[in-house]
C-alpha cells in the first residue's frame, strides 16, 4: 500500500536557476559589495569567494501588513510572577521588540548574508571593469595542457601497453588459477614418494594411476595461457592544465603626494588583474611591492597601498631597487619576471633619462614583460616621453594611460593581448 522511493539521485542542484535569478536581480548591490570587498582585500586573496551582505529591507518582499500602531493583544507562555493589571514599560520601539507575536509578519531588517562562489565573485569583479565576455573566458581558461600519466587502464592502443605491468598481471593470474592444481600435485607427489619408499611390488597399478593423474594435472597447469588479453595493462594519460613553473610580479608604485586614494585604487585594481592573469599561467607566484617617492623601499602590501609617507619623486630609485631584488633573489634563469608600474607620471625631469637607461640596459633583458600605466595624467609627462624610447627598443615593454576604473580593463587587454611570437 505504501511506496518507498529513493529520490536522492534525482535533480541535484535544482535550485541553481533560482539562485542565478536572485543574483541577477540584486546585481547592483552585489557588485557594490564586491567592489568594497576588493578594496579591503589583499591582492593574493582576491580570487576567493566572498561573503556578501545585502540590507534586509532591500530584498524583503512587500505584502500588506499591520504597522505597530493601535491596539494589539499578545499571548505568551512562561509567566512566573505577573498578575493582572501589572504594567510593563514599553520596550524601545526599534528593532528591540523581537518576540512580538502580533507583528511577526513584518519582514526582518537583518542583513541578508550569503556566499558568492569564487566563480561568481570573479564574474562580478570583471564586470566592474566592464569586460567583454570574450576576454573573460580567455582569462579564466587556460589553453595549454600537458599530458600526464594517470595510472593504468585495461584498454588502449598497442603502443601504450605496459609490458612489465601486463606480465606481472599474467603471472599473478597464472599463480592464482594454478594454485589448486599445484596443491593437489604436491599431495600426489608426497603420496608417490611414500609408495616408492615402501616399494611394495603389488602396487604398480596404483603407481601408474597416480602417475597418470599427476601428468593430467601438469598438463592442466601447462594449459593455463601464459598471457591473456585480460592481463594487458595500458598506460593511461590524461590532459592536465599546464602552469609554467614560477613567476614573480613586481608592483612599483609612485606614492608622491599626487597619488591620492582614487589613483591608488585604480593602481590596485590593475595589479589585481595582473595577479589574476598570472596565477592562471603559473603554478607558483610571488609578489614584490616597491613604493617610492624620492627613495624606494620594499614593503608589504598594506604599507604599499595605505602608508601615508610621501615626498618628491625619483622614479629611478624604484627601478634600481627592482634590479637589485632581481639580482639577489630572482635569477631570471629560474623565474619569469613581470613588472607593473603605476605612476601619475610626474618625475624629476633629469631623472627620467636615467630611468630609460636603467630599463634598456639592465632591467628589460631579464624580464618577460614590463607594463607601465600612467594614471590620470593630464598630458604625457616627461617619464612617458622617455619610456616611449624604451618601447621602441623592447617589444615586451608596454605603456598605457588610465583615466577611470572603467579604462583599466581595456588598457590591461591592450598590454597583455596575445602577440604573435
Amino acid at each position, binding site marked *: 500500500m505504501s511506496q518507498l522511493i529513493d529520490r536522492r539521485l534525482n535533480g*541535484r542542484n535544482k535550485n541553481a536557476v533560482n*539562485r542565478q*535569478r536572485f543574483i541577477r536581480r540584486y546585481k547592483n548591490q552585489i557588485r557594490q559589495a564586491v567592489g568594497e570587498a576588493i578594496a579591503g582585500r589583499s591582492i593574493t586573496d582576491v580570487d576567493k569567494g566572498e561573503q556578501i551582505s545585502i540590507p534586509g529591507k532591500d530584498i524583503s518582499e512587500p505584502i500588506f*501588513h499591520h504597522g505597530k500602531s*493601535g491596539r494589539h493583544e*499578545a499571548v*505568551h507562555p512562561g509567566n512566573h510572577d505577573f498578575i493582572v493589571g501589572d504594567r510593563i514599560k514599553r520596550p524601545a520601539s526599534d528593532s528591540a521588540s523581537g518576540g512580538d507575536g502580533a507583528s511577526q509578519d513584518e519582514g526582518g531588517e537583518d542583513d541578508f548574508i550569503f556566499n558568492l562562489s569564487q566563480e561568481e565573485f570573479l564574474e562580478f569583479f570583471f564586470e566592474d571593469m566592464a569586460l567583454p565576455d570574450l576576454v573573460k573566458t580567455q582569462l579564466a581558461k587556460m589553453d595549454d595542457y600537458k599530458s600526464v600519466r594517470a595510472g593504468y587502464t585495461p584498454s588502449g592502443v598497442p603502443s601504450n601497453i605496459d609490458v612489465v605491468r601486463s606480465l606481472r598481471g599474467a603471472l599473478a593470474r597464472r599463480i592464482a588459477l594454478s594454485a589448486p592444481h599445484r596443491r593437489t600435485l604436491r599431495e600426489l607427489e608426497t603420496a608417490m614418494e611414500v609408495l616408492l619408499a615402501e616399494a611394495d611390488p603389488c602396487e604398480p597399478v596404483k603407481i601408474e594411476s597416480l602417475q597418470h593423474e599427476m601428468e593430467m594435472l601438469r598438463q592442466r597447469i601447462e594449459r593455463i595461457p601464459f598471457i591473456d588479453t585480460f592481463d594487458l595493462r595500458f598506460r593511461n594519460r590524461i590532459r592536465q592544465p599546464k602552469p609554467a613553473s614560477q613567476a614573480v610580479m613586481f608592483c612599483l608604485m609612485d606614492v608622491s603626494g599626487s597619488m591620492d586614494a582614487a589613483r591608488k585604487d585604480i593602481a590596485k585594481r590593475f595589479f589585481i588583474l595582473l595577479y589574476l592573469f598570472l596565477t592562471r599561467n603559473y603554478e607558483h607566484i610571488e609578489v614584490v611591492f616597491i613604493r617610492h617617492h624620492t627613495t624606494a623601499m620594499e614593503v608589504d602590501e598594506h604599507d604599499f597601498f595605505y602608508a601615508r609617507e610621501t615626498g618628491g619623486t625619483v622614479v629611478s630609485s624604484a627601478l634600481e631597487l627592482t634590479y637589485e631584488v632581481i639580482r639577489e633573489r630572482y635569477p631570471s634563469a629560474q623565474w619569469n619576471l613581470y613588472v607593473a608600474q603605476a605612476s601619475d607620471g610626474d618625475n624629476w625631469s633629469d631623472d627620467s633619462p636615467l630611468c630609460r637607461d636603467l630599463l634598456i640596459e639592465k632591467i628589460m633583458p631579464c624580464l618577460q614583460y614590463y607594463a607601465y600605466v600612467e594614471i590620470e595624467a593630464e598630458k604625457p609627462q616627461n617619464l612617458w616621453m622617455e619610456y616611449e624610447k624604451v618601447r621602441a627598443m623592447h617589444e615586451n615593454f608596454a605603456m598605457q594611460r588610465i583615466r577611470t576604473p572603467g579604462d583599466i580593463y581595456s588598457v590591461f587587454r591592450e598590454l597583455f593581448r596575445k602577440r604573435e611570437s
Partner: protein
Amino acid sequence: MRKKCLSEGSEWTFELIQRYEHEIARVAAHYGLDTYPNQIEIISAEQMMDAYSSSGMPVGYNYWSYGKQFIAVEQRYKRGQMGLAYEIVINSDPCIAYLMEENTMMMQALVVAHASYGHNSFFKGNYLFRTWTNADGIIDYLLFAKNYISQCEERYGEEAVELLLDSCHALMNYGVDRYKRPTRLSAQRERARQQEREAYQQSQVNDLWRTLPVRAMDESFVTDEARFPGEPQENLLYFIEKHAPLLEPWQREVVRIVRKIAQYFFPQRQTQVMNEGWATFWHHTIINHLYDEGLLSDGFMLEFMQSHTNVVFQPGYDDPRYSGINPYALGFAMMTDIRRICERPNEEDRQWFPELAGSDWLQSLDFAMRNFKDESFIVQYLSPKVIRDLKLFAILDDDSREALEVSAIHDDMGYHHVRNALAELYNLGSREPDIQVYRVDRRGDRSLTLRHTQHNRRELGESTDEVLRHVARLWGFDVRLESVFDDGSVELTHSCQVPH
C-alpha cells in the same frame, strides 16, 4: 511474551523502513486513522533545502525568491544555526512524505508516523482541506503551472514574467476565497480549457470596458450607474484576473496560477496548531504503542523521547530562545489534553467540557480534527489545565496608553480572556489587514479603489505603498486605498498613480 525488536542501532535501510512502516500502518489502522495511500521518498539534504525553500512545492516554477530562500536556508544550515526540517509532507493523493537521508532509523520511523499517518490523516479528514484542496490534482497542476510559466518566459522574456510574478506574489495572501468553494484543480481540464478560457475572459473584459463612453462624462449618468463591483471583493487576485482592463491573456493565466497555489496553501496557514498537534500526538501515540508491544528497543525509545521533547519544547517569554508560541507544543498539549478529559475527567473538566468529559476519546479527537481550524479549535478546546501548564498570559499593547498591561493570566479570572486572546492571534482575518476591492471608476479614469477596514486602530505597515505599486502594475490604472476607521469615517490614505 515480548516480540523481537524491529532493529538495533541507528542505521536505516530500505528494508527496515518498510518493516517499520508496516507496523506503523497496522497501529494507525488500529486507532482508526483514515489516510490517503502513502508515497515515501528518501531525499538528500540539498533536496530537502530545495523543497523547503519553495514552501514544500514538489514542482515549483522558477522564481528568484525561491533562490533567496534557498540561500538563506543553506546558510543557516551550514552554520549549524538550524537543523533541517526532518520531514516535508505534501497534501496530495497519494500523500508524499520526504525523509532525509541523514536521519537515523529512529527519525525515519518517527517521520513516517508523524507525516505519513498524522499529517496524512489530517489532510484527508479536516474540513478545510476537504473543501479547499484537491489532493489528487495538485501535482499535475503544479507541473502545468511550471511548464506554462516557462513557456511564457520563452515567449515574453524572463523579465516580463518576473515582474508579473512579483506583483502577484505581493498579493498572494489576497488571492484566496475565504467563504466560497473553489472549483477543483485538474491539470487535464486546465490545459483543455485554458485556450477557451483565454478567449472567453478577454471577451468578458472587453465587454466590461466597452461601456466606456467616448464623449465627456455626464455627471448624473455616472451617479445613476450601479457601483462596480456590486459588493466589495476580498479576492484581489481573482478580481484582477477577471477585470483588469489591460492584461494580456497569458498574464491573466499567470495571475490565476499564483491565485490557485495560494488557495491550495490557505488551509495550511489556518490549521498550523491543529495539524502539527495532531501529527505530533499520533507519532507519540503510535511509537509508544509499538514500544509497549515490544517492537522497539530501549535505545530507540530514549532517542525518540529526546527528539519528541525537542519538538514540543516551549521556552518561556523571557528565555533567549523564545520566538513565539510553538505550534507543535500548543497543539500536542491540546490534543493530549482532549484525550485526558475524555478518559480521566476531573470536576473542572466536567464544568468546562460537559460534552467531552467521559466520552470516547478516539471519536471526540476525530471530531475535533475534522471540524475546526486553529482559531475555533482554541476557542472550543483550550482548557484551564493547558493554560496553567503553559503558564499563558495576555499582554495588551495599546499605543494610546503609556505602558503595556498584563490583561489576563492563568487563573480563574483569566482563562476565558487568555483563550479568546490566543484564538484571536490565529484568526487570519484579523492577523492580516482587511483589504477589499471597493470600487472601479468605469466611466472616469478607470482607477481602482481598495478599502482597508481598520480594526483596533491598527494602521497599515510601511510596505503598503510598494504593494499598491504592484496592484497598479496589474490593474494598469491608478490605484487608491481608503481606510475605514473604527468610528466609521473614511479617508484616502494611500494612492499610486500609473505613469501615463
